[in-house]
């Protein structure tokens, strides 16, 4: 046993050294670090669909098969090399993995982060290491409202938009709403979404009152009691920013109890559930996709290509997390190529990429993206909500209402919460 453990140690040490030695790379390729949940509860609904999207997009970009404005191979002709990292684990682990990507793997750009806690923690490190970092999914408005960052870009609109548009949808489709309630996960995302929704409702439908705000623990899984409380409160409208298994469990447990019939339920992140759980979502449920993604995406060439390629490979349609990932990589690509052109065809520096990225407007699979807020670092985009309806056993989204970017995103320099509190002054 003595020699065995020694040998085990020796193996462990050599494995460490092997893993630690910098990977060799082709000089001319552009290396992108992709950080997304590969394990943990967020892997299934967000992380893995996003990774899948990154995989096929990078493959197809390298093959030059992406149609429309993004037809150039790779990033400005240079092939893309992807380094994948799991976002699961503590924030400290994430910071250390980020340093690893930048300082050991020498990636050119980092694209990633679903968790708000992680993106908040990574941003100052990106500044410190001077590496262009594109946040693709994290929702918290605090990221770019509280600090001005040079190297950090976010290509999806922040979560304020989701809740504001949800309340606008209620105001226009159910103007007679007398009462509303919420069921949101008890952590930053759920708390923020609920207060934004409540704030907008107060401004748009001041006569409506809150009956109950349920805040179950994240990943609780069992919502029987909360559903009873919601049923008993009899609100006209119920707001929920649930996602992942919690969202699916809520739908499964609430639908048979008639909650969706008695109240109009708005699921701001509901789109991730419709592909897997379509037949369990009752008609009349209001669904959002955190932007004009997936079922709300415009009928463009690039979207048709993305839908088809993704379905062919993974036998399921891409969800909004996949769209967010595509939007981020295409944003980075556009900025990179613009910078390369400006540099006269030479590989652009980080500073040149930043100059090109700031204020950029580009076309993604979800339509137009404007890097307009937070000094050109924060994307704004239109968004949409719709109501589910079963047509011949197929879940469709009807009564879709689209909200232009300016209507649901605060003006430059104004914090989302202040904007809502001000009654949406421009």
């Amino acid at each position: 046993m003595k020699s065995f453990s020694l040998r085990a140690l020796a193996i462990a040490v050599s494995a460490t050294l092997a893993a630690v030695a910098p990977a060799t790379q082709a000089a001319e390729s552009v290396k992108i670090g992709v950080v997304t949940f590969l394990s943990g509860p967020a892997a299934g609904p967000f992380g893995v669909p996003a990774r899948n999207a990154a995989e096929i997009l990078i493959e197809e970009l390298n093959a030059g098969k992406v149609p429309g404005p993004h037809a150039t191979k790779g990033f400005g002709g240079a092939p893309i090399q992807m380094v994948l990292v799991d976002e699961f684990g503590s924030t400290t682990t994430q910071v250390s993995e980020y340093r690893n990507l930048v300082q050991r793997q020498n990636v050119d750009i980092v694209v990633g982060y679903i968790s708000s806690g992680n993106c908040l923690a990574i941003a100052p490190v990106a500044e410190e290491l001077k590496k262009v970092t594109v946040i693709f999914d994290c929702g918290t408005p605090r990221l770019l409202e509280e600090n001005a960052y040079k190297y950090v870009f976010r290509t999806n609109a922040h979560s304020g938009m989701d809740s504001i548009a949800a309340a606008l949808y209620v105001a226009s489709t159910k103007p007679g709403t007398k009462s509303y309630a919420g069921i949101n996960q008890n952590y930053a995302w759920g708390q923020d979404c609920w207060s934004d929704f409540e704030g907008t409702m107060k401004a748009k439908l001041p006569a409506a009152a809150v009956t109950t705000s349920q805040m179950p623990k994240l990943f609780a899984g069992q919502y029987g009691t909360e559903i009873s409380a919601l049923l008993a409160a009899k609100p006209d409208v119920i707001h929920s920013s649930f996602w992942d298994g919690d969202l699916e469990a809520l739908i499964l447990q609430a639908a048979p109890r008639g909650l969706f019939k008695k109240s109009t339920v708005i699921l701001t992140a509901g789109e991730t559930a419709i592909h897997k759980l379509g037949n369990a979502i009752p008609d009349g449920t209001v669904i959002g996709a955190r932007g004009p993604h997936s079922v709300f995406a415009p009928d463009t060439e690039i979207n048709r290509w993305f839908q088809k390629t993704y379905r062919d490979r993974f036998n399921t349609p891409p969800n909004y997390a996949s769209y967010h990932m595509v939007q981020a990589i295409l944003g980075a690509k556009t900025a990179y190529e613009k910078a390369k052109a400006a540099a006269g065809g030479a590989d652009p520096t980080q500073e040149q990429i930043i100059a090109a990225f700031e204020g950029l407007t580009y076309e993604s699979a979800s339509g137009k993206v404007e890097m307009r807020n937070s000094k050109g670092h924060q994307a704004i985009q239109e968004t949409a909500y719709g109501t589910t309806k079963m047509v011949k056993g197929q879940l469709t989204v009807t009564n879709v209402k689209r909200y232009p970017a300016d209507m649901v995103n605060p003006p430059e320099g104004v914090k989302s919460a202040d904007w809502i509190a001000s009654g949406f002054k421009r």
Partner: protein
Amino acid sequence: MSEAVAIFLDGSIYAAWLFLVAVGLTLVYGVMKIVNVAHGATYTVGAYAAVSLCGAWAAGGGNEWGIYLPLVLAAPVVGLILGPILERLFLRPLRDEEETVLMLVTYALFLILEDSVKFIWGVDPYFLSEPYLLPGGIDIFDLTYPVYNFGMLIAATVVGVGLAWFLSKSKSGRIVRAVIHDREVAMAMGANVDRIYLAVFSFGCALAALGGALTAPTVSVIPSMGVEVIVLAFAVVVIGGMGSIIGALLGALLVGFVRAMAVHLLPEAELFIIYLVMATVLLVRPSGLFAPAEARKI
């Protein structure tokens, strides 16, 4: 009035679920003095086993109402396969280690099992809602409750009563109780501790799997579904008194009702109400409500 009824029903249903997921944990601790963190992973495996077995049943054209058979069958299948593997390979050789070391062993097993589930079934969620939807719902006052939830109540009652009967009336049950009370004396009296440990651990696994299988129809089945459950089950078991079956029942009821009251009357408090109950109970009764007496001589 209807609120009181709702609190009672919601509390009972939640307590039934808690009891189902916690009873195996307390039994294994009582007999083997192992705080089995892998219980949570076994719960997950049970849910996945139910998905696979029910899937096979449906694919094989089995009767629609017969789906409850493979659902429940997931428990003994997991118990008989996973239980002996874990006990024989990992727990038996380390039996004489301290409680905390054993707890870490099961924590390691938990990590391994959770990733193994990912290798086998992937990270995409599975849905097994047929057993939940099939029996429909009933209206109580103006609230609709799924009949399936009352099935859960019955399952918890059957498990609780069955276990109580087994431990108090059957011969093997009395031997198990003797081991709970004093392992050395029971051994001296001729109890085959090896066999008892194997059986009890496998049975504990089966109970965890039963919890997972019966929960599967109400949730999306994902690899990490056991993480929250293990912490909850701990709280219930600690409140009730580790190793006590009746304690697990009372712990489940206490947590169930307190939580139902919180959700209906003070939803803000839901987040840490369980830990608050746990800390309070421990401060008042350091060994939980019903810690089984252990022999200590000086």
